[in-house]
């Protein structure tokens, strides 16, 4: 039933209906509302049997999940930003051990400077960890992806991360259908582990593997990710028939049929991008949008096909590789290396900077005139940058840039949006 719900609440209810047996939590904005709500459902007995464990760090949160999953329990946790980085060793370990843990990542920037607002730096930091990473465009999709995530993870024995934009989605209230228990049960069978710690059938999990087999082990996990490329669309289709709506899949195209310019992006920004695209089409530009849901595994073929007709591809990223540029862009470039098109990277929305339709339209207008440089930083205040650079040039002890800039701006939070 459609209800006007906060994104975090919708995710929490949906996760609960996936019947996790162990949930552990360490609070970090903007993930808090999710685990608070799950915790309440466990305490009230609405979610049972389930052990809700308040741990002392994200590192412990993932470690507890590892132990629980290896013991045959369906395990769930959620984190963001610094929290993800603090648990990163365990994140890799969970994937290496092939434990189908599902984790919500409420995407948030990484400090310093410390910043609690949304971008995708955290997700990108664990891009190579062996987890499947699915990006939600809306809160509805965020909720739905969790159901598919448990199914996918347990089928393949691979952990899955559902990425949803911090605050923008987690704290947004909108009409969402949190699927009911019967429907979820029908879609998601009980967890049957590939390996389990059982005193009656003892095994040793987590052996040390040397050069003689390590590469094979890694290659096998690569093959599992390739399997995921098959399973993700299949599950999305199955989900669509079961729940009557499109959620998940590898990617989604919008008005790309005749598009000359295609914007590629991840997550919630796609909504604004679509509005901008519509506006530009009214101005006579043929603009389309491709939203990538499955960032890992990265659907090279699907992306290639989706972009095949375009002359320009603009990748809008909420993260970037300092010292290089786009992260998603390199993947898109790999997908389209033999296509004859110009690829532009736009870094936008870092640390919660609002990505406005106005800016996007201006950007597209420039692109239409081929005035877009290979790497663009949307709404970058060059004046501030220059001021700080000259300050740095002038005196060695010019102080921390972030504080200097805030002083220049005399800013307040409300202005940042």
């Amino acid at each position, binding site marked *: 039933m459609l209800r006007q719900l906060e994104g975090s609440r919708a995710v929490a209810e949906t996760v609960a209906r996936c019947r996790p047996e162990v949930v552990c939590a360490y609070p970090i904005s903007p993930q808090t509302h999710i685990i608070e709500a799950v915790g309440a459902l466990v305490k009230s007995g609405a979610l049972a049997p389930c052990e809700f464990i308040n741990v002392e760090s994200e590192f412990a949160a993932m470690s507890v999940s590892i132990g629980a999953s290896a013991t045959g329990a369906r395990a769930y946790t959620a984190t963001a930003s610094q929290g993800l980085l603090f648990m990163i060793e365990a994140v890799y370990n969970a994937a*290496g*051990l*092939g434990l189908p843990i599902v984790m919500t990542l409420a995407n948030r920037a990484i400090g310093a400077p410390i910043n609690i607002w949304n971008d995708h730096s955290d997700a990108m930091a664990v891009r190579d960890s062996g987890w499947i990473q699915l990006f939600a465009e809306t809160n509805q999709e965020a909720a739905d992806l969790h159901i598919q995530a448990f199914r996918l993870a347990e089928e393949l*024995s691979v952990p899955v991360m559902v990425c949803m934009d911090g605050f923008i989605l987690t704290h947004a209230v909108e009409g969402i259908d949190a699927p009911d228990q019967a429907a979820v049960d029908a879609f998601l069978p009980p967890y049957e*582990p*590939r*390996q*389990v710690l*059982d005193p009656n*059938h*003892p*095994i*040793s*999990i*987590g*052996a040390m*593997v040397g050069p003689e*087999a*390590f590469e*094979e*082990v890694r290659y*096998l996990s690569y093959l599992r990710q390739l399997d995921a490329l098959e399973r993700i669309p299949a599950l999305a289709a199955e989900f669509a028939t079961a729940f009557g709506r499109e959620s998940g899949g590898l990617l989604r195209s919008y008005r790309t049929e005749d598009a000359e310019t295609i914007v590629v992006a991840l997550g919630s920004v796609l909504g604004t991008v679509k509005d901008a695209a519509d506006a530009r089409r009214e101005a006579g530009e043929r603009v389309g949008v491709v939203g990538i849901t499955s960032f890992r595994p990265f659907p090279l073929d699907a992306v290639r096909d989706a972009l095949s007709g375009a002359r320009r591809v603009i990748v809008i990223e909420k993260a970037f590789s300092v010292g290089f540029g786009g992260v998603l862009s390199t993947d898109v470039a790999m997908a389209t290396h033999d296509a004859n098109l110009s690829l532009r990277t736009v870094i936008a929305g870092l640390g919660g900077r609002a990505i406005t339709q106005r800016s996007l339209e201006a950007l597209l207008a420039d692109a239409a005139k081929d005035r877009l440089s290979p790497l663009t930083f949307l709404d970058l205040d060059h004046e501030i940058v220059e001021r700080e650079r000259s300050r740095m040039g002038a005196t060695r002890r010019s102080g921390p840039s972030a504080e200097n800039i805030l002083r220049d701006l005399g800013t307040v939070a409300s202005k940042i949006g």
Partner: protein
Amino acid sequence: MNKPPFAITLEVGSSRANHTGSWRVERAVYVDRMPPCNDGCPAGENIQQWLYRAEPGDYEPAWRQIVEDNPFPAVMGRICYHPCETACNRAQLDEAVGINSIERFLGDLAIEHGWSLPPAGAPSGKRILVVGGGPSGLSAAYHLRRLGHGVLLVDSAPQLGGMMRYGIPAYRLPRASLDAEIDRIVALGVEIELDHTVTDIEHERTEGGFDAVFLAVGAQLARRVGIPAGDSSRILDAFSLLHRVAEDDPPLLGRRVAIYGGGDTALDAARTARRLGATDAVIVYRRNRERMPAQGDELNEAIEEGITMRWLSTVNRFEGDQLILEKMRLNDEGFPEPTGELEELDADSLVLALGQETDLSLLEGEPDITISDGVVEVSPAMMAGENGVFAGGDAVPSQRTATVAIGHGKRAARGIDAYLTGGTLTDPPRHELATFDLLNTWYYSEADRTHRPELERARRQSTFDEVVGGLTEENALFEARRCMSCGNCFECDNCFGVCPDNAVIKLGVGQRYEIDLDFCKGCGMCVKECPCGAIEMVPEQI
């Protein structure tokens, strides 16, 4: 469950395919070493083994283990000077194991329960003449019977036992115990002829058609010295004193008795004198206490009973009821020298305890027998000469104790058996001695020795009741369990437990252990942690 993931997950126990034994440069090897108690026992008892059997309370098997070698546990448990305890490694930890008292406990238990000795062996058709019914003669007779040989045992005395009966007072060795153990031997089918003194060995041998002879005539002649004495002065020798007491015909000694000598017999004589009513019993000895041949504990018992000592003194002369003593001093070699300084000692009688000699007149005419210092030279098999005449006990050169004599008897019996079957007696190779430094005593808990009760002094001075009592079963068991099993595995499971590689295989009760060389890395922990030193490391041959 479906197949676990490749490499990161493994099937249990698969490491047994990895034979880490190849790392080894030394291997652990189980050994048996000679325990000092066994090493020190003149009767050749396997002491450690019978203690081992006694530890769980299996007393009869323990007793049977003793009588394998020595048919006199009850007697030994009383009069043996237990060199086993002197040698016992436990003495270096706290106190020696009370082996002697456990042996007596087992001996008495056997008498109480009427356990019989192992039966005589299948008749060999051979007959052996044993001359002398003392410890060595009886021991020989016992072992010969077990070997199936016929035995005629002759003795000049009216009763069997020799010195055990006529040389050792009843308060040390009650006659009931002695008789019981002698009767058990006789019961094996030993022919006995008492009050018969053999004067011509060759004659008797051919008369009786004996295949061999064992001479165990002991040393019955008291050694005498010329002591100037008045007619009224009463002088007698210790042996006849003890002999007459043993036959209930005690001589009159008076109230003040001096005993001349420093051996055990001197002590026996003095203590006997007290029991016959002497108020003063004074031992006159020309050396000091340190140089006294008598056993320490008996001297203490004597002193407790009121015996006094005149160290560094010799008897110069005996005038009426006055004994004139001369003071001595020890020279650098420790020999006593006269000082010329005289002193007096009132005495009604003087008992000479200067040792015994052997009467070997019966050997006159025997060919190729060597007699030197009044005793018979014998081969390692106890044979004197070539023609089947064997000798043992006090009649041959060695320490003159009952235990030694019993050992001789056993050895002679085996020698005779070998002689009769045309072979020669060969000893199995002796194991290396299990010295204290080979032990890891940590594993033995603190346990002080239990001592035997002693008769209160009043009764000891007036009666011939046995002075030293026996152990209760609990004490005997406690004492037996103080044994450290030096040099021989007692299956404590230490090696099995402490091996970090599970490379010790436990073969089951009585079967001990085996090293699993597939996995033994040769760390040597089992050797270091073996309490009794029954494992050693040996280099691998590479």
